[in-house]
């Protein structure tokens, strides 16, 4: 019997399912960052707002990267539905803490797919995901660096304003 699955699909079916789940997570992450950007805009934290707008775009790019990988390799990528986005926050510190937790969850999810790739011997997908493993380390590092600033500069008044001004220099320089 011909191996029609392999003729049509270069990646493992279960990995395709997990990558589709990852698309949902990246889309959720992108929308969550938009909500954070909106909160920052309303609270006159312009630099933090720009940071989250950029983060939102970046998560969407990650999503598209996975989306295209699935389709380019013969699978079917599914456009995700996004719901349950939090819009209410108590402080900028809470926002960055939530952002760090979100990044950690994404990292764990990527790692789990890599483990599964090894189990089913899907080397192509594992190689593809290596970029995400490195990217997630940088994302976590950025959020952690910003949270450290709250310890140094405080969470309100002038300290908060000064911290907001430091935000543009952190990404990439973390």
């Amino acid at each position: 019997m011909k191996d029609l699955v392999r003729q049509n699909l270069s990646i493992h079916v279960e990995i395709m399912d997990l990558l589709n789940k990852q698309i949902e997570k990246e889309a959720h992450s992108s929308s969550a960052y938009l909500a954070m950007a909106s909160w920052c805009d309303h609270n006159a934290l312009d630099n933090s707002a720009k940071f989250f707008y950029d983060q939102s775009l970046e998560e969407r790019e990650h999503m598209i990267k996975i989306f295209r990988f699935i389709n380019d390799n013969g699978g079917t990528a599914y456009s995700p539905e996004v719901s349950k986005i939090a819009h209410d926050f108590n402080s900028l510190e809470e926002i960055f803490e939530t952002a760090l937790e979100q990044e950690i969850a994404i990292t764990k999810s990527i790692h789990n797919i890599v483990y599964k790739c090894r189990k089913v011997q899907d080397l192509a997908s594992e190689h593809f995901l290596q970029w995400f493993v490195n990217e997630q380390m940088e994302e976590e590092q950025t959020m952690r660096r910003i949270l450290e600033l709250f310890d140094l500069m405080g969470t309100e008044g002038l300290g908060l304003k000064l911290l907001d001004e430091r935000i543009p220099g952190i990404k990439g320089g973390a």
Partner: protein
Amino acid sequence: MRILDQSRFFSSYQCDGSRCFYIDFNHKTVKMSFCQLLSFRQKLLNIDLDSHFNGENSQGIEILMLCNKEHLFIFNTLEILDLKKLLNNTFTALEINSMIAC
């Protein structure tokens, strides 16, 4: 055509000549490309079976459109359970075939 799996109500086949799959829905046989088979599988995976038992889907009916809206099927709870089993076993058979082909 080679049989991949047979459940209580349905059967799945692979045809090497046309490089396609066939699902026998008892009263109707549907030809599917691999891409369409994947899409069918996804539709089944998305069905929330709990809703058939907790009152949310009190009729216990699912309407599925297959192969880019070419076919429309109405299934009851038992048939959905059977289809889920069929597709699961079909993909297991395909995976075993891939392993043997390696």
